[in-house]
């Protein structure tokens, strides 16, 4: 009888430990608290201790977004991107891990105008464009894989990311862009005096071919080689519709994380990228080069005491774009010499703010506030478009194992971005009606204030006897702007986890 009692008690303790470990691993992976350290995971060396347990997920998901009016004409009014994905994090030994991610998505964007390339956010303002636009299909393949190991005080790791993408339209104007994007990151970290100090370097190579065709004889309109804020390189606009982007870049990052539960955090990152737009038809003549510099700083303190998590982080991000126009001379054969380079386009984007985290038991809370500004300028003839906004955001999360086989993760977020300044300078007298409408449309939404509400739930179901678990996730996001328009978004995912 005593043996039986001992066995039962031992089993209960074991089950409790397993459940507790599962709880911890679940919280460790999905808690809002991860926001205090995730920024450092850009350094693959830190992946050695990124998660407590191995975890693999396979699933299907769909992202849907619709705007009642395009907030930015180049982005269109929305998208539906269904896809399949897999990601894994596997602890090979006590001191080494591998991780990877694969994604395939195939969907559609609606009503894109003044944008006939893929990766607009990366390449603007140097894109080819037309005022007709339309819906586009997008197909994306993404793979990444990394390895990290720990030897004594040292951790080292590397990760390779590959992205291939095509975006196309099946009616005139038939744009087609094919993208290859490869990044390799290597990092090292060392444990010194209760802190982990890490340094990482990333190299990036980018290629995109983009062309626009017209199959209908009636639709032989030209494409614009855009140069920023509604301007275009008139000399090579029109029939020159085949372009090619060559990009390269590098990023360096330094991180400091406490080894334990409590301590100071620091993240410094500086990256430079350049993207040259070449004209296929004129012997790869360079039209423009976009230089992008991004610097980021995050610093703060975090601590866990008596089951309560507290952290305060301040952040500052500076993102600068400078665009050179290569002034072409007179042609010799099909070759144009470059007379000079002029840095005609500048954009400065600044985001400074602070985030406070608080967590206790099943609840986590994050409060974020800051200032965001964007200043765009075209040098001659002068054009400017600026705005400044103050923002505040509150995020609450409830994360709990409600039954032995069921975990729930409920998250809600609400925030407001209020405009505090805006300015536009345009040579309206010399602008065509279409170009004026295009600029005014985008400015209308840049100078607006926005309120947003996001709500999401994720459920993980895994009975003790099952070797794999199931998960389902659904989230919705709404954004309302003072111009009376709104955006609605839904993300849904289901899959297995093991």
């Amino acid at each position: 009888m005593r043996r039986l009692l001992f066995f039962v008690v031992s089993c209960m303790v074991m089950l409790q430990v397993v459940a507790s470990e599962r709880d911890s691993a679940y919280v460790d992976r999905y808690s809002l608290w991860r926001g205090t350290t995730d920024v450092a995971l850009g350094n693959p060396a830190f992946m050695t201790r990124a998660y407590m347990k191995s975890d693999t997920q396979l699933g299907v998901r769909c992202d849907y977004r619709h705007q009642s009016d395009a907030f930015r004409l180049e982005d269109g009014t929305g998208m539906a991107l269904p896809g399949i994905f897999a990601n894994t994090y596997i602890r090979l030994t006590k001191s080494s891990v591998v991780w990877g991610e694969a994604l395939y998505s195939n969907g559609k964007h609606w009503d894109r105008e003044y944008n006939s390339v893929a990766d607009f956010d990366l390449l603007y303002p140097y894109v080819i464009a037309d005022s007709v636009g339309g819906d586009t299909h997008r197909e994306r393949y993404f793979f990444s894989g990394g390895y990290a190991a720990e030897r004594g005080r040292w951790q080292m790791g590397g990760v390779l990311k590959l992205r291939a993408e095509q975006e196309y339209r099946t009616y005139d104007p038939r744009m087609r862009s094919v993208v290859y994007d490869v990044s390799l990151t290597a990092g090292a970290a060392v444990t010194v005096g209760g802190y982990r100090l890490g340094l990482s370097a990333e190299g990036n190579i980018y290629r995109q071919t983009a062309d626009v065709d017209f199959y209908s004889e009636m639709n032989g309109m030209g494409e614009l080689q855009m140069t920023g804020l509604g301007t275009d390189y008139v000399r090579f606009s029109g029939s020159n519709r085949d372009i090619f982007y060559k990009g390269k870049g590098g990023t360096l990052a330094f991180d400091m994380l406490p080894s334990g539960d409590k301590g100071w955090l620091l993240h410094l990152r500086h990256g430079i990228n350049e993207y040259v737009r070449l004209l296929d038809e004129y012997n790869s003549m360079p039209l423009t080069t976009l230089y992008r510099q991004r610097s980021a700083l995050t610093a703060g303190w975090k601590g866990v005491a008596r089951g309560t998590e507290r952290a305060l982080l301040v952040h500052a991000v500076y993102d600068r774009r400078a665009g050179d126009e290569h002034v072409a001379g007179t042609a010799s054969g099909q070759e144009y010499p470059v007379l000079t380079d002029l840095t005609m386009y500048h954009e400065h984007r600044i985001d400074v703010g602070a985030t406070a985290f608080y967590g206790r038991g099943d609840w986590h809370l994050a409060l974020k506030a800051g200032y965001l500004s964007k200043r765009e300028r075209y040098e001659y003839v002068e054009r400017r478009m600026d705005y400044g906004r103050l923002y505040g955001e509150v995020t609450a999360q409830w994360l709990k194992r409600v039954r032995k086989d069921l975990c729930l993760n409920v998250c809600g977020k609400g925030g407001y971005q209020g405009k505090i300044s805006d300015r536009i300078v345009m040579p309206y007298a010399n602008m065509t009606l279409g170009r004026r409408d295009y600029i005014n449309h985008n400015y209308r939404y840049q100078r607006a204030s926005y309120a947003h509400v996001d709500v999401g739930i994720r459920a993980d179901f895994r009975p003790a006897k099952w070797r794999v678990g199931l998960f389902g996730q659904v989230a919705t996001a709404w954004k309302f702007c003072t111009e009376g328009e709104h955006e609605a978004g839904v993300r849904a995912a289901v899959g297995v986890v093991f």
Partner: protein
Amino acid sequence: MRWLLILLVSCMAVTVCGCHQDNDEYMTVATVRLDGGEGVRIERVQAMAHFTNLNSRHVTSTANFDGAEVQVVLLRGAYQVLVEGILSYVDADGKRMVRSFRAVSDYVELAGIGTSQAKMDIILLD
């Protein structure tokens, strides 16, 4: 620890130095001289000069002639130039004449840093 700091500072210095330097010498003081041919000395010009930037099609016009020269501040680049008006000149025989003229060029490089010069041949119209 010390070498890590040195490495960090070196890397940051390299990346900051690797940042793009703006080419912000945008404007040039362009001087275009009208040439009437051998033995012709242009004394005064009353004309409009139109400079069309080939890249942007932006047109700058001026009538600011000083003798046979016109000077204008332009964005550095390649231009189409059209000058039309009336000039007074002294010909090879020493005779002073007043006539209409035109000077046209599809391509003129006015891309010098600070200043740029160009010469254009005129054609007399009557």
